[in-house]
């Protein structure tokens, strides 16, 4: 077990700049999730922590040891790949025991360790099979098993669940989390899936174009996004953004939309007359079916899920989404009023995207 420190790391492949000064402190035993759009450098960062890629500049530390030039085999880490990367010519048991075998551990010790891991993951009956004889979910478990057999200092996961079906994904998500709580090993987990990110993480790291946008507890990132990118990336359906002008008097502040509607806004540093982005999540909008208050919009589509209803409506040219637990009877084209909960409204600087 160890903390992992990434200090001002840069990385480029030729002219392609992938990471631009990334710094993260990961605490001992923490479960850190890296999220960001495709191509933002998550896998690259993970592979550099693993020692599979060289770093251009900066330092990576595992414990208090700088590992910039340490070979992967000497970093005492384990990694689960998206493709699982199981050795096709070895049985499940040999796959799981490989790392111990390479370290010349005694055979009975290896058998015991593999048996324990197999027990934890419910792989007991599959030990003699080859990877090609397993289902996707079973392969995923073997890949997990291979990682835990060795009890490394750090676990690295690169989208380990993305090849599974939705149900299995939910199940494995819980199992991985439980496993982590039992073992208490530092884990770094890359994913696309923000539900995974929100549910599993102790802390989320949001990246974009090789730059860290925000690091924080899942709910903190959700409730207090550092900038418009984080706000739009975290949360599904995403936050609604409307452009307007900030106005304030001594005791109230509001944002004036293009059509003249005045929406209440929290007190911020926004200057009078500044062009801002008014951000509000779907669940922070209340629907006024009579269209007597709030922002007036026309219903476009409603998506009932049984538990709740998503109402998409049109304001000028943009679509706004509202979330409600009520079963509303709305028809397409019907005008409604969208009333924001001012406590949950964010204002972003239009130019920089930073939250005000």
């Amino acid at each position, binding site marked *: 077990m160890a903390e992992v420190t990434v200090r001002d790391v*840069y990385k*480029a492949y030729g002219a392609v*700049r992938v990471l*631009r*000064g990334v710094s993260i402190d990961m*605490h001992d035993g923490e479960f850190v999730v890296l999220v960001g759009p495709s191509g933002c450098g998550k896998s690259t960062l993970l592979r550099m922590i693993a020692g599979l890629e*060289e*770093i*251009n*500049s900066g330092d990576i530390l595992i414990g208090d040891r700088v590992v910039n030039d340490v070979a992967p085999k000497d970093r005492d880490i384990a990694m689960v790949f998206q493709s699982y990367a199981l050795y096709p010519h070895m049985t499940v048991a040999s796959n799981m025991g490989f790392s111990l075998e390479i370290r010349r551990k005694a055979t009975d010790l290896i058998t015991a360790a593999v048996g324990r891991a197999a027990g934890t993951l419910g792989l007991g009956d599959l030990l003699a099979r080859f990877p090609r004889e397993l289902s996707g979910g079973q392969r995923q478990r073997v890949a997990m098993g291979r990682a835990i057999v060795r009890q490394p200092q750090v676990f690295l996961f690169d989208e380990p669940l993305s090849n599974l079906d939705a149900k299995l994904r939910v199940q494995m998500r819980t199992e991985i989390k439980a496993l982590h709580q039992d073992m208490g090993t530092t884990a770094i987990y890359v994913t696309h899936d923000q539900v995974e990110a929100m549910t599993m993480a*102790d*802390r989320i790291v949001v990246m*974009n*174009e*090789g*730059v*860290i*946008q*925000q*690091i*924080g*507890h899942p709910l*903190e*990132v959700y409730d*207090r996004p*550092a*900038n*418009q*990118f984080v706000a739009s990336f975290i949360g599904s359906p995403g936050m609604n953004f409307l452009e307007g002008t900030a106005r304030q008097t001594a005791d109230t502040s509001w944002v004036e939309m293009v059509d003249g509607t005045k929406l209440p806004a929290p007190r911020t540093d926004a200057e009078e007359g500044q062009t801002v982005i008014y951000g509000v999540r779907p669940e922070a909008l209340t629907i006024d079916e009579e269209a007597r208050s709030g922002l007036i919009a026309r219903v476009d589509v409603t998506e009932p899920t049984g538990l709740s209803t998503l109402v998409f409506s049109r304001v000028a040219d943009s679509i706004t989404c509202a979330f409600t637990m009520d079963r509303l009877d709305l028809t397409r084209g019907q005008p409604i009023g969208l009333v924001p909960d001012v406590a949950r409204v964010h204002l972003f600087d239009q130019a*920089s*995207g*930073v939250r005000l």
Partner: protein
Amino acid sequence: MAGSTITSYGPAASEVFPEPRRRAWRALIEPYLYLSPALILIGLVMFVPLLLGLSFAYRNIHLLNPFSGGFVGLDHFSAIMGDKRFWRALINTGWWTGASLVLQFSLGLGLAMLLNRPFRGKRFVQAIIFLPWAVPIFLSGLTWAWLFNPVIGPLPHWLAALGVMSEPYNILSNPSVAMWGPIIANVWFGIPFFAITMLAALQSVPYELHEAAAIDGASAWQRFVKVTLPFIAPVIAITVLLRTIWISNFADLIIVMTGGGPADSTQIVASYIFTTAYRRLDFGYASAISTALLVLLMLYSLIVLQLRRRLAGKV
């Protein structure tokens, strides 16, 4: 853990990107290390002799003439221009290569398609069909020469019975058709190579593609033309390119079966080089012809690769 860290929203416009650390010296030479045995072998056994051979083309080298060895400039090359035998051999090379290639390719692809589906005894059938490849070329040439000989071979009699020939004779001794002898032997010997390559290519076509096309209403023939062929086209292009070069350089069968005769009717450039060098012992002239052949093959490859790039660019 408290408090979220906020860095800039996007990369700063004026960011200073640090120079990468110098890569370890070892990491830089590692690939060359792995390649070195191959490079040393190719350099010493192919390139040095090649340069030496190319230099012969500008000298007068007659093995039996002790006064030879002098520098003759471009004399050999101007001699080639007026050498009827060379031009004849060049045309024959086109024939030999074209006919062998077309037949090997179409039959090889056909065979690969027959083999590209499960049936009982497949291993055995494959072993039989690929056998000609394992037969030493010299032996193949000899066997086929026998088969074409009306005294000890059945082929002329069969052809006569079919009415293709008026009477059984040896096609290898008739200048107007003699080329077909080595071509047929070459096809026999070369089908397995094509079949194996094409089979590998066919098996790499994802089965789902076929299913998708079938669901879209494509017939078996349409599936072949619209799905299979485009998918294996790159392999075909490379295989055909390499094979063309090999076949046009491949003189062994001709030397064994006809020696280029009768009356030069089966002489290709490669066998002409061999005859010039080792029968007439005129190494200088042989090298000049080799140089010409090498240049022609390089031009051909350039054109094919260019075409392939064009095609690939379009898709």
